[in-house]
């Protein structure tokens, strides 16, 4: 008896000391749990290249330009004005009176240093495409820079408003990428108080953030971000008040959490697109997918609406384009549509000589349920899919080495709202182009280099028309991300998969 009572006493003592660690909105601290896709490996996200690194960057740093999420309009952030001097030179006037968190004044040297360092051949930048368009950056005067591009690059403004933060030049030159990651210094709405890499990051509002940034001054004073890899643990933390918001919820978790008092949960559409790529470039040596009728048949065979409705909680949209319709130049009108029509699919297959059905090897890194639904759809028209659902690395290996006649995958366009981030990546020639369509390559070269928006739209529309007519891809649906948050938090998800944590406030 004595033992049991002392156990209970000990446990309640534990309870008393432990509760102080739980979240409390009264201390004006937003607790974020993230890490479902792995930890943020480097706060210097040019090198780190993680999704959460993009979110962190938005809080701590600023970009030259900021895209307005509601209107899509480009607004001056660290730059106030810009113009193309010629088709390969963009001149930007920089904003006066902005300081980095360490007190250093922002100026042309910071822009020149950051972009020249990151675009250098061996900079270690993870995604070359983000910086590769820059030839070099030149300082005109203390508050003016010129970006010289390798080729004419009309998407420059979109890239500059994307994952291209400006670093303080003296500090970065002194501490390097590791130093920057361990003690980040930026101009953004939040300052870093403490970094425990891979574990916890503590931020506090930058009270000097009133130089007119299009990003709002932070509404919540403190932010604590914790790396929690397991989604179930995130849910438990959310329910116990250990964290206030997470963005790693699966559709079924969202459904279950939506009914929990004090919590809100929502699936939200993203710029990510899901596609089945078909090897029309004859790398996998599969004659069936080289036949346009077979590729069209596969397009007709899939019930996209059914999948979105039943498996993605209706939060996604069905796609007809090889890009996301929210992206500039991604015209749905230009696309040849393939509504769900199993009979037509069968007829096309028969015409192509596959009346008795067809064996197709498909590699997939997509979620199991979607892949299985697609298999079912294809089986119904006589396509016997042998599905290799494998981790991303193995999928990519099979695809690159030409073992995959069909590959189900998804693409996030680096959160860039320009069709070129998808179409030009996959159809402009090179190793990732499994169509190698000469006309498309030419159109995309034009679209990626003329500055006139109308002309760009026109050639991208031509490319989309050809890609869908030839059915090089089977566009499926857009992606969704599941968020869950404390009902006291005023939270809005965005389509580019970047939560603006500085915008959120307590209700």
């Amino acid at each position: 008896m004595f033992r049991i009572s002392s156990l209970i006493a000990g446990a309640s003592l534990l309870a008393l000391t432990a509760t102080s660690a739980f979240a409390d909105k009264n201390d004006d601290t937003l607790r974020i749990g993230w890490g479902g896709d792995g930890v943020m490996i480097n706060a210097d996200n040019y090198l780190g290249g993680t999704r959460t690194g993009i979110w962190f960057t938005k809080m701590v740093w600023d970009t030259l330009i900021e895209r307005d999420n509601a209107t899509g309009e480009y607004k001056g952030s660290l730059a106030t004005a810009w113009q193309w001097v010629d088709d390969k030179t963009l001149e930007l006037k920089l904003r006066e009176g902005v300081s980095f968190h360490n007190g250093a004044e922002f100026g042309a040297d910071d822009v020149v240093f950051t972009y020249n360092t990151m675009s250098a051949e061996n900079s270690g930048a993870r995604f070359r495409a983000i910086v590769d368009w820059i030839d070099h950056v030149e300082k005109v005067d203390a508050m003016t820079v010129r970006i010289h591009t390798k080729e004419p690059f009309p998407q420059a403004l979109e890239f500059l408003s994307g994952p291209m933060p400006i670093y303080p030049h003296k500090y970065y030159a002194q501490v390097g990428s590791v130093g920057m990651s361990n003690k980040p210094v930026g101009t953004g709405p939040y300052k870093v108080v403490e970094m425990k890499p891979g574990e916890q990051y503590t931020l506090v509002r930058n009270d000097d953030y009133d130089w007119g940034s299009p990003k709002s001054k932070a509404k919540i004073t403190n932010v604590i971000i914790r790396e929690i890899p397991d989604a179930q643990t995130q849910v438990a933390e959310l329910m116990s008040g250990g964290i206030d918001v997470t963005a790693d919820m699966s559709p079924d978790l969202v459904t279950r959490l939506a009914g929990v008092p004090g919590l809100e949960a929502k699936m939200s559409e993203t710029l990510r697109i899901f596609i089945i790529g078909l090897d029309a470039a004859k790398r996998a040596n599969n004659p069936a997918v080289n036949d346009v009728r077979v590729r069209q048949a596969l397009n007709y065979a899939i019930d996209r609406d059914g999948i979105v409705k039943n498996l993605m909680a209706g939060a996604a949209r069905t796609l007809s384009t090889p890009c996301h319709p929210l992206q500039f130049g991604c015209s749905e009108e230009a696309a040849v549509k393939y509504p769900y029509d199993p009979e037509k699919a069968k007829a096309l297959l028969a015409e192509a000589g596959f009346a008795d059905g067809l064996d197709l090897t498909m590699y997939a890194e997509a979620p199991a349920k979607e892949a299985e639904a697609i298999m079912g759809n294809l089986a119904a028209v006589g396509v016997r899919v042998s599905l290799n659902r494998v981790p991303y690395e193995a999928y990519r290996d099979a695809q690159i080495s030409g073992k995959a006649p069909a590959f189900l995958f998804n693409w996030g366009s680096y959160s860039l709202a320009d069709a070129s981030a998808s179409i030009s990546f996959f159809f402009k020639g090179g190793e990732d182009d499994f169509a190698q369509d000469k006309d498309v390559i030419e159109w995309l070269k034009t679209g990626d280099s003329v500055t006139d928006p109308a002309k760009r739209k026109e050639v991208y529309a031509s490319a989309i028309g050809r890609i869908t007519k030839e059915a090089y891809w089977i566009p499926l649906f857009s992606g969704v991300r599941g968020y869950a948050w404390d009902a006291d938090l005023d939270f809005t998800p965005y389509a580019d998969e970047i939560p603006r944590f500085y915008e959120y406030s307590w209700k």
Partner: protein
Amino acid sequence: MTSFIIKRLASAVLTILVVSALTFSLAFLAGDPAIAIAGKDSSAADIARVREYYGFDRPVVIQYGEWLAKALTGDFGRSFHYQQSVADMLASRLPITFGLGVAAIIFALAIAVPLGVAAAAKPGGLIDRFALGLSVLGQAMPTFWLALLLVVLFGLTLRWLPISGNATWQHFVMPTIALGTFALPALLRITRAGTLDALRSDYVRTARAKGLGAGKVLFRHALRNVMIPLVSISAVQLGALLAGSIVIEQIFALQGIGALSYDATLRADLPVVQAITLIVAVFYVLLTLVADIVNAILDPRIRESW
């Protein structure tokens, strides 16, 4: 005795070498490490650049040789991803995993030893049946399942304990219980079996005949006999816990070497994977060695046979 230790050490070094060579080649068997390093959404050109930068297109044997030559001088290199020195990363994460492992073993021993002895004192009795049930349950229940049950009970329903992280000692209570339960059955059974053997032996009958009390017989004579296998098993279990804390660290968001090795394996961060494998292998081998030496101290018979 010296030659015994030298022989043991030589076989230990060999074991460690084989383990590390195997891990290295497995990383390449699983696919091109350049793809994992370049990361999702990287272009074929990004991947090719990574492959060339790290020299993955060269024969694996040569790459392993290079790594080994450096490792022997104590240079584990830099993480492909974190750009930080692997030695620094391990230094900050080892204490968490090691502390958790030791705490879990202590937790398991604290339950296994008294319960095992009490069960053996009256075989077939109520306590014995309870012990049997506990050991079957502990063995059958996956650690992650127990961990989730603990989270629901102590984290959500009772709200006694913080759920994840490693900020305070309270954060280690649930992981310790979950991991300790994994080690419990083996320790419990060895204690019970050993005590039973001892109680049936001649020297215990003699001790009883001399009129010693039941408690003295149990703890002074029987338990001492159990200590030898118990120390060996505990050492082996501790090694297993160090390697097996991967799941527990993921669930409780503890940033020990378990979580690090999981992350590093997924991202093909070879220097990190290699260093962790090496360290866990060294621990395992050392623990077995230490167990032998401790046994020798505890048991004069083993000492004399050397």
